[in-house]
């Protein structure tokens, strides 16, 4: 399994100067912004588009996530969008013409308490009724799929079983983003880096221009895809939204011979782990509790995560922590995203993905492009409207998300 990575294409994207006007301005050149651009061009033939990125393309959470892809969410609304994304992942390498190393190696979500078992059975049954592959496994069956997990009874929180989604997997995050970027660029879309949005010019309920560090840009429609910095943009528009930005840390080990054939996630012994193609162990855990826009966190979070990793995988004791880093996740009160209309008629919002953003990338890109093209929320994103915090129609995924937000 440990392997050298495939070559990148000889050409990725141009470095254009921003034009003075675009039909669509996508704010945020991360995975979601780039995927939206790609599907605007591919599905809707909309190519007079700029993607504005304040730093380097896909340098935010797209470069910082742990690359896990799954669709085994509890609620119908979540399952629909993540399963839509997973189906797109299954054809994405071909669509993008890029070796994104999508590897469907399955995900185990471990249960360590009686309540974990109840919640797991509930989610498996819901997944199956929604047509999503899901199984409940006994500890012995867990050990067959991932022999290095400690399923013995002599640990603090023994493994009572696990849910298993065989179609879940990992992909190489940078390659995914670059694949989308290259396709968007080929379609004539301008990917503009080092271009920070600093304000908006409005006329009634329309945004007419986007002010940037590289000049003002007139816009037909605006799609906000700025993840943890969405709240900053919404402040510029005077739109309140219930978003909290937290640091979320992740880490890798050095390169190791293959030992870990799948993905393992645990909430009670809090860590999630996979082994990337080259051989490094990639891990994450919970968010840092305080709010902030700094892309780094506190070290005790890492220490606790290491304790959890060694507890579940005793053989990791002398693997070495090579690098830690942080992203900024935007978290909502119900741990589900906010997508769709804003009080401005030509501004669409896409935010609040918390820890789920990477796996949703093609799905949300597809749906947001459709939303922009048709001027109404795509059915898969309609349940995630901002006004649900007023109506109370929440999609509360706290119990089912990988990470306790």
């Amino acid at each position, binding site marked *: 399994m440990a392997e050298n*990575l495939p070559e990148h294409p000889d050409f990725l994207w*141009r470095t254009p100067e921003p034009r003075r006007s675009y039909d669509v301005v996508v704010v945020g050149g991360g995975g979601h912004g780039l995927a939206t651009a790609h599907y605007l061009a591919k599905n809707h033939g909309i190519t007079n588009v700029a993607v504005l990125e304040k730093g380097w393309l896909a340098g935010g959470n797209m470069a910082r996530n742990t690359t896990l892809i799954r669709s085994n969410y509890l609620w119908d609304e979540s399952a629909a969008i993540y399963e839509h994304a997973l189906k797109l992942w299954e054809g994405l390498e071909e669509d993008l013409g890029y070796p994104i190393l999508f590897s469907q190696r399955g995900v185990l979500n471990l249960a360590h308490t009686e309540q974990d078992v109840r919640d797991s059975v509930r989610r498996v049954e819901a997944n199956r009724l929604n047509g999503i592959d899901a199984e409940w496994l006994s500890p012995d069956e867990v050990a067959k799929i991932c022999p290095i997990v400690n399923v013995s009874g002599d640990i603090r929180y023994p493994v009572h079983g696990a849910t298993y989604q065989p179609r879940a997997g990992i992909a190489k995050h940078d390659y995914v983003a670059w694949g989308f970027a290259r396709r968007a660029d080929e379609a004539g879309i301008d990917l503009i880096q080092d271009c920070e949005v600093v304000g908006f010019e409005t006329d009634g309920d329309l945004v007419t221009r986007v002010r940037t560090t590289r000049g003002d840009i007139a816009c037909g429609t605006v799609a906000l895809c700025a993840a943890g910095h969405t709240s900053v943009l919404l402040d510029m528009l005077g739109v309140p939204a219930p978003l909290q930005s937290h640091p979320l840390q992740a880490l890798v080990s050095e390169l190791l011979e293959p030992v870990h054939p799948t993905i393992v996630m645990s909430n009670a012994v809090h860590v999630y782990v996979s082994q990337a193609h080259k051989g490094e162990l990639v891990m994450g855990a919970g968010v840092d509790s305080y709010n902030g826009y700094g892309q780094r966190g506190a070290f005790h979070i890492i220490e606790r995560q290491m304790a959890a990793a060694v507890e579940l995988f005793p053989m990791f004791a002398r693997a070495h922590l090579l690098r830690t880093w942080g992203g900024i996740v935007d978290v909502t009160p119900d741990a589900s995203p906010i997508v769709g209309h804003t009080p401005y008629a030509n501004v669409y919002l896409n935010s609040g993905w918390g820890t789920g953003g990477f796996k949703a990338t093609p799905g949300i890109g597809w749906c947001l492009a459709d939303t922009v093209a048709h001027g109404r929320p795509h059915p898969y994103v309609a349940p995630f409207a901002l006004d*649900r915090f007023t109506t109370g129609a929440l999609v509360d995924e706290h119990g089912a998300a990988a990470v306790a937000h």
Partner: protein
Amino acid sequence: MTRVDGYGRVDRTRTLRFTFDGVSYTGHPGDTLASALLAHGVRTIARSVKQDRPRGVTAVWSEDPTGLVQVEEPFPEPMLLATTIELVDGLVASSIGGRGRLAEVPDTARYDRRYAHCETLVVGAGPAGLLAARTAARRGDRVVLVDDRPAAGGSLTGTERICGRDALDFVADTLAELRAHPDVRILLRTTAFGHYDDGFVLALERRTDHLAPAPQGLSRQRVWRIRAGHVVVATGAHERPIVVADNDRPGIMLAASARDLLHRYGVLAGRRVVVFTSDDAAYDAAADLAGAGAEVTLLDPRPVRGDSRSGDYRRSRGLVLGTGAGPDGAISHVFTDQGELPCDLLLLSGGWNPTSHLFSHVRGALRYDAELGAFRPGEALAGVTVVGAANGTFDLAGCLAEGRGETPEPLPRTNLVLWRTDGDPARQYVDLQRDSTVADIARATGAGLRSVEHVKRYTTIGTAHDQGKTSGVLASAITAELLGVPIESLGTTTFRPPYTPIAFAALAGRERGQLFDPVRTTALHAWHVARGAVFEDVGQWKRARYYPLPGEAGGTEDMDTAVLRECAAVRRDVGILDGSTLGKIEVRGPDAGAFLDMIYTNLMSSLRPGRVRYGVMCGLDGMVIDDGTVLRLDDEGFLVYTTTGGAAPILDHMEEWLQTEWPHLRVTLTSVTEQWATFPVVGPRSRDVVGALAPHVDVSAAAFPFMTWQDTEVDGVPVRLARISFSGELAWEVSVDGWHAPALWRRLIALGEPYGITPYGTETMHVLRAEKGYPIIGQDTDGTVSPQDLGMSWAVSTKKVDFIGKRSFARAENRNPLRKQLVGLLPLDPTVKLPEGSQIIEQTAELPPPPVPMLGHVTSSYRSAALGRTFALALVKGGHARIGERLTVPVGGDLVPVEVTGSVLVDPEGTRRDG
């Protein structure tokens, strides 16, 4: 052998034996695996990860990009640099190809953690750091001095003089002075690997690997958590190579590393040496290696000047353009602009990069110094000082001055910034561990990439074990050159902790196995164990789940049998439960009632002393987060019972509201969970048992009504009795301080014996409460359930002006009649027990294709002794209106028909409550 007499500080009077790739060698105390192998002329010790090319030792310490090996004995550990493995007798190691192998056997070593607090932390015990530590110690500071190598002195080789003395004597004297200070802690073999805000530095101390055998009882590694008022970064600099074609072969090294090998270990790494440098420092290496007997040729692209260090070596103006190899793949000659030169060692030196990681970890900005050809710390950070080579001050006098806190006159620069020479870019390696070349960078820029972060990800430069210590700045420089932009416009990639790789187990520390999370036990734990209880984890608590009796066939009862027996005994006679884990919070102050009125959905301030009230708490979204009883102790005091799992979160929740939203309220909150042990005594005969325990208390229904409490004494010990029932039966909760709990419990058991008192566990408690339709928050609710959904509208005040969650009850969706509501479910087949978590769908004989609309799920499911059948609680859409309907529960491949009922299945009239 390349060991040179008269050089080095290894102890040659003692011999250590070790094995590398199956071959036995010897070395000496003080050696590293790398120095001992080089002493035997072993130059190839690894293979590269992508191209499988031979690799040797390139640098002498943790910046080495190439010499990764696998240790096999004394314990398997992957991916260690041979240069940082201290040699011990019996060491077994092997070469690897860029990937390590994890041990199949458990690591039994112990790892631990300590804290240190000081005014001044000095990282690096080289000349600058030593003087900084001495200055701070003389000032009276508490000082911590850490250095990652086994000995202090940093880059000092012993050839220098400080204050007229041998430099190493100066080091020894300074250390001795520091050691004499009571408040100075010196930690060698300790790597400061992470720097966080407010002077927080993490350091790893390696305590036993250099000792063979490792002493028992000593932790192998220790993480120091150091909080310093001031952090002095004196971490030196890393030498930077010049990139030439085929610069990855064994036998190619940084110049100062070869010099260090000679002076520290007495190892002459080559006999025919070519030094290629554009910086004066490498002249010392040339002179010293020549002095030790090597034949040295130095090539420098700069015009020959007369003031550099002389020695017995040839020197000419020139460039190395490439290298050639012998049959073993190691260097055999170099190609220069003047022709070919045979050699067995090529030393490269293009200048120095300040080791500014710890400055960068806390977001210190680096600025490019064009004269140095390096990034050095820019604008100062509060609480952080960077001194010596880490600050770009490379001369000894300047380092000493900065260590003393002075600002030295900068010396005139004589170096030439040279990143690479002409040659085939595909053979010019930038990151030797990742086999990444100048051609790879050119491909990246050709693909349109303009950011060093993109180039890093495209080429993988800087992603290996060394995180670009020698390659990072080169990559930025070559990218800048290819793009035709100034290097300062690109900067570097981000420095992130840890500075060097750290074993997972070291960071896990003692938090493994049973210490992964504290185990909390009640005061009665020993009794439960002796009684044969089966335990379940509830948060950190171990709770008795049931007490199996010996079975008929010699084993013990299974859970179903034991729980049916316990349930029947409680409803027939009397049972006793250890409920001590329930959270308890004493809420006290003139505004305690007003505070609880905001926290609970129902009114609490109106509760009179001596009375008990059940209450529900919601979050802002109007969903239930906890429930429990509240005892009014006196005018200003309430005792709040939370669920077991809610004890800490609810206290946090209350404190957050109190401290951030209602700081004007005069209320204090005190957790008393562990101060009170609580035992419900439950069942028709509970009055007899409690009456016998407290003969002075009138326990009649009239004198001691439901939802009241009284204090009494038993043998002089204060005991609290409260008429609270979580089963529908006549019941008292008996509370006593934890110290007296075992005696009181045993007394209750003895007093209850004539009435058949039966200890029961959490499982029976769950069945009994479910039979009455009492929800367990967190099991029958999931954060999406309102009090109304639970059929508890009666617990939501309509009079209070405000409370947490009130506004949300007015939202449209909260009033939707199709919300999920708590109901009972009876499988039509009374022997079928539904798995908890099962989904519920409309009645059907055949499962339709997905997506199948779901109506809700089974939250609790049991066998009931009282009902003589199975039953379940469930959340069902519009459930209250569906009572009497039939639905379907898919279980495995089966479709189980069920009937919806009310949630109260036993004694719906409440006749049993008063006995």
